[in-house]
Structure formats: C-alpha cells, structure tokens
C-alpha cells in the first residue's frame, strides 16, 4: 500500500524488484525442496552450486563464446549449457559423495555435514581457478532497454526476461512432476519413500537424476542473476539462507509451497527497506536519522521474524504436507 511518504512509482519499482528477487528464490527453493522431499538431504551446498553455475556461465559466455560470437549469443549459450553442465556435476556429486551416506545411521545429519563441507570447499576452489575477487558480468546488449518507464518506475528488459523465464520454468517443473514418469516416481518417493523401495523401483537412478535436476536449476539461477550483480565466490551465502526461509515458509514437500513462499519472501525483501525508510521516519538514540542501511538489515531480520510466526501458526509451513518431515 502506498502510504505516507511512499511514492507510487517507487512502490511499483520495489514491487517489481521483489518479483525479480522472488523469481530467483522460486528457482532455488524448488530444487532445494524437491531434493529434500525425495532424498531427505538438506542441501547446504545449494548456494555454492548456484555460485558455481554463475562461474560456469561466466566462463562459457565471457571467456569462450563472447570473443567469437559476441555477448548476446554468448549469454544464450551460457543459459543453455550451464544447466546441462550442472546437471552432470550434480549427478557426479550424488554418485560419488552423497550416495555413500544412504542407509547409514544419521544419514540426514551426514547429508548436512557433507553439503556444508562442500559449501566451505567450493568457494575456495573457485577462488583458486577464477581468482579471489568477483568478476563482472554485463547485461547482454540485447536486453539494454526498458519495457516501461514512468518516473522512477523502470521495468528493465532483462529483469522482465528473468521473471518470464522463471515462470516458464515453474510450468515446466510442474509438467515434469505431474505429467512424466520421473515426476510420478519423485512424488511417490516424497509421499512414501519406503514403499517405493519395497516395490523394487530403481530409486538410485531417480535420486541421482533428481539431485542433478535441483543442481541444474540452482546453476541456471546463478547464470540468470550474474548480469544483475557480478559473479563472486560468496554470492551463494546469503541467498542460501533466504532460500531455506522460503522453503520453510512455503512448506516442505509441496510444489506450490516454494513458488508462493518465494514470491512472498521476495516482496518482503524488497518492500521492507522502502516502507521502513519512508513510513518509519525515526531518530536513533544519538539523534541522527535511521537511514536506509538500517532498513536493509532490518529486512534480513524480518524474514526470520516472518518465518518464526508462520512456524508458530503452521509448523509445516503454508503448503507443507504431512509426511515430508517424517
């Protein structure tokens, strides 16, 4: 609601930025949630796979293709190549690392430790190869225009592209889950994993491909976000925590949960600083105004507050399903 000192254009702008941010949350949270729902793996490596995807995209686009075919084709090539590369990396990681903990005692906790270890290892590995500082990644020239511009409300072509692609992917993932055989087995496994194994379905293959899929989605999100910021070894840290919040808020084991949760958290992330600094104009104890910095941090905290409230009211999250935790 535009109230008090909030300018409508500015409000719409933040709403739009929230939608873009939410799109990234949705892509990451879907992968995280599907992997957790089926395999019981709480993937702390999701953020670094997203980061690795961004570096893969940077390498394919800026280092390999762009010098020959130019930045536009290079970016499209990266969008196509990175999910495939990350799908493979995800499957290899599942096969040689994750699969070793199946059917061991405390497998779930081992999963946390292994993927957490990866989240420590991978950023340094990336620094060794691509260098310590981040690398710039420009918006492809074909997207260098605005679709809509009213005062400070600016709908950039690239951000619009992000939202559209995320929407298409959500539809595709829905299709995969509800209209393919792999999806049926994934849903069956999420619903009653023991039963799937008792029936003698080859779960090894399904788990491997599902993990690969989740990682491919994370990598894809990494490439998509790169032109908006830059590629950086630490880029996956904050967003991982935010994605966990999305999954918890939306509810584990459901398809719609991460989608709605991602959009809600995206708006919270975008609107809190705006509403904070324009509506709550207050001084701190030393008599200076509380500035935008405060509200940026406050939005991080608010995410946790909202998550806590939702957990108190609905312990399984907004769309959580029975059984996903059991």
């Amino acid at each position: 609601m535009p109230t008090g000192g909030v300018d409508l254009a500015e409000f719409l702008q933040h709403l739009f930025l929230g939608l873009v941010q939410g799109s990234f949350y949705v892509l990451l949270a879907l992968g995280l949630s599907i992997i957790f729902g089926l395999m019981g793996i709480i993937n702390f490596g999701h953020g670094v796979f997203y980061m690795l995807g961004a570096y893969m995209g940077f390498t394919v686009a800026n280092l390999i293709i762009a010098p020959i075919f130019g930045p536009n084709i290079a970016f499209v090539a990266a969008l196509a190549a990175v999910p495939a590369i990350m799908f493979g990396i995800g499957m290899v990681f599942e096969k040689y690392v994750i699969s070793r903990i199946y059917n061991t005692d405390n497998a779930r906790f081992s999963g946390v430790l292994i993927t957490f270890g990866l989240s420590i290892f991978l950023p340094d590995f990336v620094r060794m190869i691509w260098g310590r500082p981040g690398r710039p990644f420009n918006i492809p020239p074909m997207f260098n225009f605005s679709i809509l511009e009213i005062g400070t409300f600016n709908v950039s072509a690239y951000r619009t592209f992000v939202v559209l692609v995320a929407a298409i992917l959500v539809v595709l993932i829905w299709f995969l889950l509800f209209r393919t055989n792999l999806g049926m087995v994934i849903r069956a496994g999420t619903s009653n994993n023991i039963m799937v194994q008792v029936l003698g379905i080859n779960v090894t293959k399904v788990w491997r491909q599902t993990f690969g899929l989740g990682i491919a989605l994370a990598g894809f999100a990494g490439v998509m976000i790169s032109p908006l910021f830059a590629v950086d070894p630490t880029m996956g840290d904050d967003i991982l925590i935010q994605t966990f919040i999305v999954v918890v808020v939306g509810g584990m084991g459901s398809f719609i949960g991460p989608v709605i949760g991602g959009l809600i958290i995206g708006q919270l992330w975008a609107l809190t600083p705006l509403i904070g600094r324009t509506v709550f104009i207050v001084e701190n104890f030393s008599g200076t105004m509380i500035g935008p910095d405060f509200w940026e941090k406050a939005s991080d905290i608010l995410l946790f507050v909202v998550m806590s409230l939702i957990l108190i009211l609905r312990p399984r999250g907004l769309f959580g399903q029975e059984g996903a935790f059991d």
Partner: protein
Amino acid sequence: MPILETQKLSKHFGGLIAVDQVDYSVEKGELRSIIGPNGAGKTTFFNMIAGDLPATEGEVIFNGENVTGLATFERSHKGIGRTYQITNIFPKLSVLENVRIAAQSRKTTFNLWTGVSSHRELIDKADDIIERIQLADKRNDLGGTLAHGEQRYLEIGIALATDPQLLLLDEPTAGMSPEESQQTAAFIQSLADPLTIILVEHDMEIVLGISDKITVLHNGKFLAEGSVEEIRENEEVQRVYLRE
C-alpha cells in the same frame, strides 16, 4: 513342490525369541491363515517371509529357491507381494498412479523421461486392477482422500499390480466395520487360486470363513495347523485363546 517353505525359521530380538524354529509349508493356490494371540510372533514371521526383517536362523524357500538373504524388493520381483498392518499407500498420488507405479516397477527397462500417458499397457493394467478393487469411480482421487476401507483395497491393488504369485496380507480387515470385513473376506477369497494367499488376521470370523488351512502360533512357536474344523476342535488352541 510347495510355493513357500520355511525351515527352522527363527527371529531373536536380543534375548527375546520372537519366532522359534518354525517349519511351514504352503502349496500353490492355497488360502492360508496365521493366527495367534498378541505377541505370538505372527507379524515377525510374516516380515521374515516378505523380507522386511532378516531371519536370525533358518531359511525361507520360495519356488524352490532360497530367498533368505534377499531384500524385500528383490523378493517382490521374485513374486512375493505384501500389504502392511498399517495402511501403506502413496497418499499424494491418485488411485490410478498408486496402482500404475506398482505396475511400472515390474518393467526393468523404463524411460523415466516420458509422459505418463506413453505406456498405455501400464494404464490398462492399472485400470483392470482398479476395477477389481472396486475403485473405478475414484480413479483420479488422491489416495490420501479415500476412506479407510478403500485405502486397504488400494493397498491390495498396489500389491496385485506387482504380479505376485504369493500375496501376504497383514490384517487386511483391521479397522473395518463387520460388513466391510465380510465384503473384504469375499474379495480375498475371489483372489485366491491361482494366487496363493497367506493372511495374518485377528478377526476369527474372517479366518474361519475363508481359510483352506489355519496355522496357530503361540509364543513364537508352532502350536497347531489344520483345517478350520480341526483348529476349532483343537483343545490346545482353545486353551491358548480362552486364556487371553
């Protein structure tokens, strides 16, 4: 040759002997029941036949093959299907999908990346079974939304879709009304021969009504075995049950 045989099958949980050297033999096409007071070891014995529990000692022979060391899913592929005491279905899948995924599990080569409508024969098979378990009008309902009795039927449907030769039913009428139990008994009887069925059941009326032969376990031991009449008149069985 019996379709199923156990030889001195035992299960120890620490110091507790749940099943003690049970010899058991079932012929093809029989409808058999295992009864016994609570804690007699019925479900433990059952779980060792299905593969859910490893045996401490002894052997399980299925179709002349020693399957003692095989896991549940391996035995499932050999032709041992089972249902559980606690209803075990996929609550978030439709009735059709529940049965279909079980039928799919029989195919060794299967392309997961194809549409669900691409394997017509699986859908036809699932629909046949859904017809048999009387859920045709709920074909597209989610398993979790079915009534309790319907879920038990669905579970049997899932087991049937795996093409079992031997079907193990663990208290199929648990939680059902007397009328439902009667219907279920008739349904189970209709499945027997060529299918071989072993039933663990508390409901005496059901057991006495449909079994070809009844086996009584007591304290993990084999107590008696015989036709319905023989078991009815067996004094030892009466003593065990009357004391309960």
